[in-house]
């Protein structure tokens, strides 16, 4: 775990540690429509890995497959060498993967506190939970002000913070974040990404799915580019940011167009 505190630094690949999360040739389907084609990716301890791609590329599907909401038809997913591709979602959480889903998906008629408690649903260690709760409040002071408020009545940014805090309450080995910047103002996006870095600094490995490729790649150690269900590119975050094709396709820049 030597790389745990180096979010933007060299990739963990070089240090020779074993990856925490490995997807090997995973294919998923919605009915008869194939959404993921032979996805292979690795996440090393302490990394922020980002998955970028356009609408419908399969980013959310990838996360849902990891979380066990969708069963992959072929391929394997393993966490610390242990297969998790055909277990139920609650077991995936128990094994150490928690997700802050797309569109926040908080429990609107429960209070902020209850939402956070739900995040720690499978844990029994009361003192540790209390400590983690304090930690979440430290990361998101706004949530502390609103502990007793019903989550559904909060603003979008606060709900996003709650969704992330709730996922953190599971004390995950790998935290999956699905589009945390969706629908937020630019100022809030900046705050959220700063918090993602903070979470990572505290030692949580993060797999981040984003449409905001610029922001995602700039904080990621490594990135994958997804297109219609396949991974077409894999590189260090910074290198992807410099890649012309990526810049043109995802960052809207018109470099190199005659």
């Amino acid at each position: 775990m030597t790389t745990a505190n180096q979010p933007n630094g060299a990739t963990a690949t070089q240090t020779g540690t074993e990856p925490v999360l490995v997807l090997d040739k995973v294919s998923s389907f919605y009915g008869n429509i194939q959404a993921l084609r032979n996805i292979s990716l690795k996440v090393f301890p302490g990394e922020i890995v980002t998955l970028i791609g356009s609408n419908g590329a399969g980013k959310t599907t990838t996360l849902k497959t990891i979380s066990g909401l969708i069963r992959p038809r072929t391929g394997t997913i393993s966490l610390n060498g242990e297969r998790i591709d055909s277990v139920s979602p609650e077991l995936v959480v128990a094994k150490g993967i928690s997700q802050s889903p797309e569109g926040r998906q908080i429990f609107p008629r429960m209070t902020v506190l209850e939402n956070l408690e739900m995040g720690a649903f499978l844990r029994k260690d009361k003192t540790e939970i209390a400590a983690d709760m304090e930690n979440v409040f430290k990361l998101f002071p706004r949530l502390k002000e609103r502990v007793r408020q019903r989550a559904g009545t909060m603003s979008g940014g606060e709900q996003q913070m709650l969704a992330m805090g709730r996922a953190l309450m599971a004390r995950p080995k790998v935290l999956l974040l699905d589009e945390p910047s969706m629908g937020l103002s630019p100022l809030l996006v900046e705050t959220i990404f700063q918090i993602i870095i903070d979470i990572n600094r505290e030692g949580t490995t993060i797999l981040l799915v984003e449409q905001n490729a610029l922001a995602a790649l700039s904080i990621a150690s490594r990135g994958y580019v997804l297109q219609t269900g396949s991974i077409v590119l894999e590189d260090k975050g910074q290198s992807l940011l410099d890649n012309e094709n990526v810049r043109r396709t995802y960052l809207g820049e018109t470099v190199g167009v005659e």
Partner: protein
Amino acid sequence: MAQVKVNPATTSGAPKSPRPFNRADLERNKIILWVVLAVIFLVLPFIGKPVLELFGPTVFSSTASAVNSTLLFVLLALGLNIVVGYAGLLDLGYAAFFAIGAYTMGFLTARGSPLYDTFHTNFWVALPISFLMAALFGVLLGAPTLGLRGDYLAIVTLGFGEIVPITINNLTKVTGGDTGLSGLEQPSFFGYQFTASSLEGWYLVTLIVVFFSIFMIRRLVNSRIGRAWMAMREDEIAAAAMGINLVRTKLLAFGLGASFAGFAGAIFANSLGSANPSQFKFDVSVLILAMIILGGMGNLWGVIAGAVALAMSDRYIIPFLTEQVRHVADGIQLTTSVVNGTRVTEANPIKDILTNVGTNSRLLIFGVILVTMMLLRPEGLFPNSRRKMELRTAPADDPQALITTDPLTQADEFRSINYNPSDVTDQSGNNDGDKNIKA
């Protein structure tokens, strides 16, 4: 999904079907089929009567009355199918319209009706009036529910379905209360006098109405209205956005659906010679709903099959089976012994149980049928083929289009919508070597 793999690239060029698709042939065959069917059904009672009477004196009458009520249930199921199957409006109180049809017939023709002295008429005049009355109530009760959908609509219709028979039951002075209206004047037709026991006559009347209804529904479903219903069923908002008048379309569905029940109710009441509120309770609504779901909602023939299957088991097979059990129970001799000069009959639990089962099993069997059917085929025996067709993209005249698209081809369409293959993949190949290309 049974799939035949079709590669569009290879099939699009050369002519593919061995026999060319001929619409006229098909039409002619269809007409022949219809005529043959009609003739078979028309002569059925006259052949069936002597045959069935060989088995016993009451076999024909019990079979025929079961067949007659089955035909009425077919009519009811066809009507409910318009509301639930085509228009997608879940109605749990359909028996109310059945009751309204029956009681309109009762009011107009029964000797016990409060109207009898001032106005009464014969069956042939009362039949269309019952039909219109039910349609009117369909629209009236449908109107307040226009804004509702799904479960909420189901609940309101359930409420109406309870209110109507209870109200009929309670308005003793008008409707005769729970004894109902009796002595309905039965029609005569060119000298043939209908009575409660003229089963062949009622069979033919109902059959003609059923045939007419099937014809009408087939025309309706393929008309603008039918398409509007289906569009509304799939997505109300989208349908409204396409310019479909939701209010008119819904009310039409309610009105037409109810009118079928009006027909059925009128014939039902008159063929029995009486109308009674207990005949139109919730279980009738459920029975009809179960028929259309069992058969396959929205599919005409499926619905008819479902209605025949359930009505026959309800009116014929289940009574027959339970009667057999009762026979066995009756056959068990109780052992009696004389103790101290008095005869003591020993209790026989097996006989008791068999008698109980033979008397009280109708609901159980029906319930088991419903649950197992749902567990085995929740979409019904014959799922709506139109729904499959709606998912199809190719023109309807191309017979090849009936073959469901291969998932890969679908996924290719998916691909073509969502990305430009040349964008990243190709050019990334031209890039520096340290890029890891996985495409």
